[in-house]
């Protein structure tokens, strides 16, 4: 049987997330894959049209129900499980959306999940990181079990566009009533998105206050960069939680990552391993961040960052 792959689309009701195009890219590395994207939404048309255009997609299935206005795993999982019968693989991104949802689907299907797929060796063999990225394991799914997986998006380049896949509607299953969306507080910002930005300026505990963090925002704006933070900076309230980079934050792969006043704990480094160029600015020449930095500068960030701002102009 050739691999028949179902990808659960991540979107915000209007726009398909680039993470979905990365899942498509991952699925397309499985030889002979037939790829279907499923869009669960209150109104699916706009997102379905975008999904149908992603190169490599053969078919788009929409499921419309008012409960899908917000992505609740408890509502989406039974829907996907109901559709999953003919598929050999069900994939979603390793974002908080996919991490929340996919294991629930796997359990409904009584099958295994492979988390954070970073490479595909065959339809049943995958590589994934463990121990905060300090080891990479090859896992093999046995006995023809259905594979549920989350795709480590930093490991794949988004598939392009140009396809014209057919779009079909599937009927919704009755969602549970035990889980209700209340609210979401998302910071509105004109800055590039941390997860997809080409450049990221990231600050650590050394910034010392939310006010000093403003200096990083200014510097980032000059570079057209997104802003990230270490856990210590988030815990201390200098930066909001969605900026955290690392094992328990975001895993990113920008062209340029500038770590400012960040020591380089393994839990932080796991989030930036795939960055093309890492720059570290730290006053401690022994800081572990220098072990992974392509360019290191030892010194006081409060002197260096204003100088950089001036030099870049």
């Amino acid at each position: 049987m050739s691999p028949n792959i179902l990808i659960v689309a991540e979107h915000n009701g209007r726009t398909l997330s680039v993470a979905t195009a990365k899942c498509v890219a991952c699925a397309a590395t499985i030889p002979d894959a037939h790829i279907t994207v499923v869009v669960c939404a209150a109104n699916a048309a706009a997102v379905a049209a975008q999904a149908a255009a992603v190169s490599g997609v053969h078919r788009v299935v929409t499921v419309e129900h008012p409960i899908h206005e917000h992505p609740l795993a408890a509502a989406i999982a039974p829907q996907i499980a109901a559709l999953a019968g003919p598929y050999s693989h069900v994939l979603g991104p390793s974002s908080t959306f996919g991490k929340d949802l996919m294991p629930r689907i796997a359990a409904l299907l009584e099958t295994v999940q492979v988390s954070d797929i970073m490479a595909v060796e065959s339809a049943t063999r995958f590589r994934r990181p463990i121990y905060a990225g300090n080891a990479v394991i090859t896992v093999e799914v046995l006995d023809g079990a259905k594979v549920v997986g989350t795709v480590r998006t930093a490991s794949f380049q988004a598939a392009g566009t140009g396809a014209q896949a057919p779009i079909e509607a599937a009927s919704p299953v009755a969602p549970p009533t035990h889980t209700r969306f209340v609210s979401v507080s998302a910071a509105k910002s004109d800055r590039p998105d941390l997860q997809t930005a080409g450049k990221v300026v990231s600050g650590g505990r050394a910034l010392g206050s939310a006010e000093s963090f403003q200096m990083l925002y200014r510097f980032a704006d000059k570079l057209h960069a997104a802003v990230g933070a270490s856990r210590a900076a988030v815990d201390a309230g200098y930066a909001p939680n969605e900026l955290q980079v690392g094992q328990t934050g975001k895993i990113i792969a920008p062209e340029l990552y500038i770590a400012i006043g960040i020591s380089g704990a393994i839990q932080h480094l796991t989030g930036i391993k795939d960055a093309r160029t890492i720059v570290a600015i730290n006053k401690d020449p022994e800081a572990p961040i220098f072990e992974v930095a392509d360019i290191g500068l030892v010194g006081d960030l409060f002197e260096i960052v204003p100088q950089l701002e001036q030099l870049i102009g």
Partner: protein
Amino acid sequence: MKRILVGIKRVVDYNVRIRIKPDGSGVVTEGVKMSVNPFDEIALEEALRIKERGAAEEVIVATVGPADCQPQLRTCLAMGADRALHVQTDTPLEPLATARVLRALTEREQPFLVLLGKQAIDDDNGQTGQMLAALWERPQATFASKVELSEGKARVTREIDAGLETIEVDLPAVVTVDLRLNEPRYVKLPDIMKAKKKPLETLTLEALGVTPRAQLKTPRYAPPAQRHKGVRVKDAAELVAALKQKGLL
């Protein structure tokens, strides 16, 4: 009785720099410091605070694993859990099997809330809680940074990629906790002594009716790709020049 069940996993301590066995068959765990998964300590702390507020009567910790998990269960009892369940097995379980065991424990203990970590820092799967919720046909609230209980309901703030999301779930429910939910208390010496007298019950997979079936094998463990050694620059001007040279500015 109003009970909270907390899932605990024994893992290599987060400060340990792990090493891969030379033959690629696994990670060296012999002689390495083992601890309670940091997320699970946060889950337990939350359970204890809920009990201290009077919203629960009993906090039970449970772990699935080999005999050497008992020190970690004792640590949890010393933190304040009332009793511990040790489902003893030498078979490494996949998350679905672990979730089945926890499901059997919810049947036995009838908790109104199950608190787990959002991920175990060794395998980094982040699956068990969501799987338990699905098998139990109950709500899940993952990556919690705030949990508020009211009659029959929980309002949970979740750390998601976009920011903070709040959902409301009917109880019983499974909540998996994130790092910023609370700061776990330190264990004091007298509590360690007291914990020795608290009940720790050992159970088997058979008694719980769980037959694990391996659906996954791990043929190879490898170190991650290494980054090349970088260069040092002496000041901001050199840094800007280096970035320009790489076409990054």
